[in-house]
């Protein structure tokens, strides 16, 4: 049996490192020398370790075990056995991860240098995954939070709009002429260039006498407000009846409006 080990200092919280380690399939996919990963019947990885002119190829079936500070990836191949133990230690604001890779099988006496490269690369992969990946998760959780704010937005309560705007950005601005029932065409046009699901569209005429606000999730109207010559109409859609009313209000809107589109931050 050959053992090689390395230590990496990861500049993030323990939870984030754990999150990267717990997702064994994507962790292993990012290892070097891994040619293929399959998760159909348990986690299997085909690993090809090069040394001189030879390549040691085998398919390992991995099991992942974890306890409070260590993770073990135990791989059984047809011609060998490979296991990686990752031990985490919190050190000041950093996490120190000690990685130990052991291999027993074909070519083990030659593979010392390859295994050392292997374990060092796994260490840097772990560092990269832990430091970068949770940023995406953070954005996603932020996104779902803003999504919730969007769903809770009610135009009859301006504070919910203020709350939404506090975590949004403007992605489109322009003067648009809305024809008879033309708001739906405009929404379609905007949808073609803006990918975010929640959209807040606000329009106002030059003289400020007529304005509207629409909150959309996909193509569905969640809330609408229209101020025109006949006063103000507001609907927050919570059932089919209100959805019909919202569509009726939307079809009344026509004229030349300055349109602004806002999306929750974390989108596009």
């Amino acid at each position: 049996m050959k053992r090689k080990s390395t230590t990496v200092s990861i500049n993030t919280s323990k939870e984030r490192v754990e999150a990267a380690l717990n997702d064994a399939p994507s962790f292993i996919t990012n290892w070097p020398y891994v040619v293929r990963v399959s998760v159909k019947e348990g986690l299997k990885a085909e690993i090809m370790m090069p040394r001189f002119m030879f390549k040691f190829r085998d398919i390992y079936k991995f099991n992942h075990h974890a306890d409070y500070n260590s993770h073990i990836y135990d791989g059984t191949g047809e011609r060998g056995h490979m296991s990686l133990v990752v031990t985490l230690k919190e050190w000041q604001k950093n996490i120190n991860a000690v990685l130990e890779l052991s291999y027993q099988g074909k070519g083990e006496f030659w593979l010392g240098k390859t295994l050392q490269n292997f374990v060092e690369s796994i260490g840097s992969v772990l560092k990269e995954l832990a430091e970068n990946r949770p940023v995406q998760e953070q954005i996603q959780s932020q996104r779902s939070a803003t999504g919730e704010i969007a769903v809770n937005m009610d135009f009859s309560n301006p504070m919910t709009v203020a709350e939404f705007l506090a975590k949004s950005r403007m992605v489109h601005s322009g003067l648009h002429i809305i024809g008879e029932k033309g708001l739906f065409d405009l929404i379609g046009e905007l949808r073609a260039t803006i990918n975010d699901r929640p959209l807040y569209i606000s329009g106002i005429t030059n003289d400020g006498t007529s304005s509207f606000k629409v909150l959309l999730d996909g193509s569905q109207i969640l809330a609408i407000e229209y101020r025109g010559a006949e006063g103000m109409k507001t609907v927050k859609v919570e059932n089919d009846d209100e959805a019909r009313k919202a569509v009726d209000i939307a079809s009344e809107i026509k004229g030349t409006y300055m349109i602004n589109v806002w999306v929750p931050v974390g989108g596009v």
Partner: protein
Amino acid sequence: MSIESDRIGNLKGWKLDPFDELQRVWKAINDGALLGVPHIVGRASVRNGMVSGLEMDVILHGSEKELSFRDGDEVYFIIPARPEEGIEGLYVKLDRILRESQ
């Protein structure tokens, strides 16, 4: 163009509808934009982190100027207003300035 808001300062909310107030001066902003750079100039009363009063007018300047200062509970401000930013864009600017003043 992009406007992005960020939450700084200690402003809890509004006791009045800021969008309503801004809509009232919208025509003046739009008309003014043909002649110069419209600015909203006014005064907001902020007590215990809540905006309880807002008075404003639209004036024209040759260029964009932003200024605000605080006197007790009152915040005086001059904020450039661009029609293409819409009511919401103007609200975000006003909100930011009131937050910064607290």
